[in-house]
């Protein structure tokens, strides 16, 4: 058992991760659900009473509770993964990305004392949230995630995985959009945001 936990705790090869994502997708279909995380944001709006103002949120959200149970599980899964299955080293990022990030003032953790390499501590903290850089990265960024996924009718799970697996042309268009936006942000807009004090 201990060696099994040690085995799972290593960073996973990308092919194993890809297979496990399909296992999750299949389990959801088998349970009578589907793989699409962003719809939960709509459900949360509906639970909050948004259906009284806008018909888009006027639906029986109780039928979507299974998906909220799923993301509730994801929170616990995240906790289990960093608590009991923690990797022996931080995420290994390519040297070229590291040196670019270094040049814009973001350090990539080299040891577990410096961080696990999931989020950059320079940006993901409550003090930065009070700066223009923090508001742009976290508040505006989060807004775009919520607005864009609902306009596109899905996110990485619903379009890139479920939709492409089902050979849906709309999902291919959405994924092309994901990359247009991601590349624009990474190569043209983020360098400006990073230069803000």
């Amino acid at each position, binding site marked *: 058992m201990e060696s099994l936990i040690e085995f799972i705790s290593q960073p996973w090869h990308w092919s194993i991760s890809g297979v496990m994502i399909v296992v999750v997708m299949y389990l959801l279909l088998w349970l009578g659900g589907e793989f699409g995380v962003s719809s939960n944001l709509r459900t949360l709006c509906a639970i909050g009473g948004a259906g009284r103002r806008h018909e888009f949120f006027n639906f029986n959200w109780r039928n979507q509770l299974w998906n909220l149970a799923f993301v509730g599980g994801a929170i616990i*899964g995240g906790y289990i993964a960093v608590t009991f299955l923690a990797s022996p080293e931080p995420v290994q990022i390519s040297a070229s990305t590291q040196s670019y990030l270094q040049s814009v003032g973001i350090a990539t953790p080299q040891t577990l004392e410096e961080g696990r390499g999931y989020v950059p501590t320079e940006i993901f903290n409550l003090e930065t949230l009070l700066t223009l850089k923090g508001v742009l990265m976290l508040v505006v960024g989060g807004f775009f995630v919520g607005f864009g996924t609902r306009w596109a009718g899905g996110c990485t799970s619903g379009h890139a995985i479920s939709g492409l697996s089902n050979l849906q042309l709309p999902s291919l268009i959405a994924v092309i959009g994901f990359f247009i*936006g991601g590349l624009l*942000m990474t190569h043209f807009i983020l360098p400006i945001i990073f230069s803000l004090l």
Partner: protein
Amino acid sequence: MKLIKFFLTGILFGIVMTKSEAVSWFRIQEMFRFESFHMYGIIGTAVVLGVIVIALIKRFGGITIYGDPIAFRPKAMSISRYLFGGTIFGLGWAMTGACPGPLFTLVGHGTSVILVVILSAIIGTYVYGALRHQLPH
């Protein structure tokens, strides 16, 4: 009982998101800078295997745990909605380094500031719902 099964599947998902490192902001930067194959390997493997699994479900009539046929809802064709909506999401994905799955997973990592990102994402969804009749679909 039904919800517990989804909850357990979610636990697996949170572990997969973490161990795959798809939750990592650094991995998303790397992906959009084309400086590592890691994320492309994950998504590519999932899509290739996913195509096979869904084709098999359709070919052999896969059923759910309750004995109903597994149903797929085809997405209505449009270009503007997917392209514009997708692009906005892409902008946010590159900023926060998190798509919705990792957003929730990071709560379990104890990254408390991610709650602000989730709240913003909920507000973004609400504003979409309020403005959707003015947007091309």
